[in-house]
């Protein structure tokens, strides 16, 4: 049982609460439904901890300010929804390239374009991973409850600091606005990670020389290191890289995350771990999948709900082990099959049938529909 203060909160509010506890002191955002409560909460709370909240002129400015604030020495965050996430894409690549730890919350709503501003969706799954140009890697977390929104926000800051990457929290309108119990631990009980800082003086410091884990130490601006941070592919000293240096740089950017996937990969199973029929879902859809498992159990039907929490980089090995023994896999999601495609890529045995249960248009799936799907498609 978790210890701490108990509060009833929206996912968006839980995000604010956790960000402040994690040490976030710079926030920049632009109003957008259904993410605005995060910007509003930060505007209200950051002054109390000598932080700063900027309502930027657009989402491009918001994320760029967040990336620079990270180099300025602050833990920093932004929050948006699909249309704003589109504008942020250049900043995502920037954060990856200049290796600035930061957290980006995308509270998904319907798309494409302005889509359905007040309805839930999960159509930004690929955008979170592949939205910016070129090769890079980042981590994406998918909460399905207010508590997970809280926990994932803490974890997002920790992973960002650990790997010096942008970490994306892929929430959605349901998680953002549902009100439920959240246990808020005391600050002393939280494990918080801080970025590595240089241990050598400026003359000996090589700004983009990675240590064994692929992550270089990061000094704050104006602490005597006087380093050139450029958004180009760079060599270890920060100059524009040669072709060889670019190869090393790009490979390091991706490997520093993907080689350590076992450190953070997280998939949870609910229900009967050995059931032959398994749902696979992420984000708010996990909630309905769980209810479906419970309802089926009452009817004497064994089901398992496999819930992907760290969706990028995709946890291939962990998913395989979580789906061991399954004969029928139903991927449930609020898009036209993005997670299904990943599951198909990972699970290649012809005897395992992979089906798609897709709900779009902003209509959240009912647990009964899961069970009806099981019967009708049999």
């Amino acid at each position, binding site marked *: 049982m978790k210890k701490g203060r108990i509060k009833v909160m929206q996912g968006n509010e839980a995000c604010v609460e956790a960000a402040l506890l994690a040490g976030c002191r*710079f926030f920049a955002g632009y109003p957008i439904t259904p993410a605005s409560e995060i910007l509003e909460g930060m505007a209200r709370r950051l002054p109390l901890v000598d932080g700063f909240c900027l309502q930027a002129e657009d989402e491009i400015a918001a994320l760029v300010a967040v990336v620079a604030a990270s180099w300025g020495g602050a833990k920093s965050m932004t929050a948006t929804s699909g249309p704003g996430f589109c504008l942020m894409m*250049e900043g995502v690549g920037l954060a990856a390239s200049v290796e600035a730890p930061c957290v980006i919350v995308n509270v998904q709503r319907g798309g494409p374009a302005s889509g359905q501003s007040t309805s839930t969706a999960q159509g930004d799954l690929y955008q979170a991973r592949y939205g910016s140009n070129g090769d890079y890697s980042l981590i994406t977390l998918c909460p399905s409850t207010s508590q997970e929104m809280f926990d994932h926000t803490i974890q997002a800051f920790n992973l960002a600091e650990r790997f010096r990457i942008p970490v994306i929290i892929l929430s959605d309108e349901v998680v953002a606005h549902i009100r439920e119990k959240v246990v808020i631990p005391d600050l002393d009980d939280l494990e918080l990670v801080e970025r590595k800082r240089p241990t050598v003086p400026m003359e000996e410091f090589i700004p983009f020389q990675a240590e064994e884990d692929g992550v270089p130490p990061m000094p704050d601006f*104006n602490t005597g290191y006087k380093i050139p941070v450029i958004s180009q592919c760079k060599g270890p000293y920060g100059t524009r890289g040669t072709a060889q240096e670019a190869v090393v740089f790009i490979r390091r950017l991706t490997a520093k995350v993907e080689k350590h996937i076992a450190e953070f990969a997280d998939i949870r199973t609910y229900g009967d771990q050995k059931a032959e029929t398994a749902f696979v879902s992420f984000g708010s859809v996990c909630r309905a999948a769980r209810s479906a498992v419970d309802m089926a159990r009452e009817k004497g039907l064994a089901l398992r709900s496999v819930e992907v929490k760290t969706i990028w980089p995709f946890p291939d090995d962990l998913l395989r082990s979580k789906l061991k023994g399954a004969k029928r896999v139903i991927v449930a999601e609020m898009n036209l099959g993005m997670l299904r495609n990943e599951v198909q890529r990972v699970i290649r045995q012809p005897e395992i049938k992979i089906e798609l249960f897709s709900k779009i248009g902003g209509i959240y799936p009912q647990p009964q529909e899961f069970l009806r799907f099981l019967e009708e498609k049999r």
Partner: protein
Amino acid sequence: MNPLGEKYLRKDFLPFLFCPGCGDGMIVQAFLEAVDQLGIIDDLALAAGIGCSAWIPVYIHADVFKGLHGRAIPAAIGLKATRPSRKVVVFTGDGDGLAIGGLHLLHAARRNIEMTVVLVNNQIYAMTGGQVAPSTQVGSRTQTTPYGNLEKPLDGCKIAVAAGATMVSRCSTAHLKTLSRTFKKALTHKGFSFVEVLSQCPVQTGRYILGSGAPQFNLQWLRDNCVPVDDPAKWGEIEAQGKIPLGDVLKIEKPEFMEEVKKMNQKVKEAWAKGGER
């Protein structure tokens, strides 16, 4: 090497990537003169985007953030807000600062956040090969206006004034002493300062618009066409003659943004401590 260069340049980054005859190296020198006289090298946080002028700060041995095209000003805000004692300076160009980054200029100016924006105006997109810029004169032939430019140019100084900047000046690389003095004024200004620097680009503007790629010709063109004036009220007259007025447009005192933020935070904390929220 110039003693300023010896003292402040990143030797391992040389040579400059600027073309022979470019004004950007002269701007580096004028800027370093101001920095040297003020003794602020350790406090500098330099921000830039993309384009020739965006490389100006990279050669200076200071903390430098060279990010995305047009996005130097938001980066500068992130740096300023996380430690307001920083001397934040943005180096941007006419394309970087007036086209793709134009919106950020408006909003930073209206906030009156303390920073200096140096907008290097060479009247063209130079690094990408000589395309029309928002500062290019009507009629100019460029790679993307092969039949002449139909669009009226933007005046960065007037935009900065309208948006709420509290110090605005226009200089040129043909008047280096004034440029250095203006940098000094801007770097000690409490609020948002905007310095436009007319600069020569022999390779693009010179060859395609002005008619010669010779560096001397291009510098002389600036001397002949830029007119220093003491009184900004006379800018209209100069412009009516088809010339470019130089000088200080505006220098006023207004509450600075980060200082106001600090005051507000203090008030909010006191109010919350008493149990009220506002």
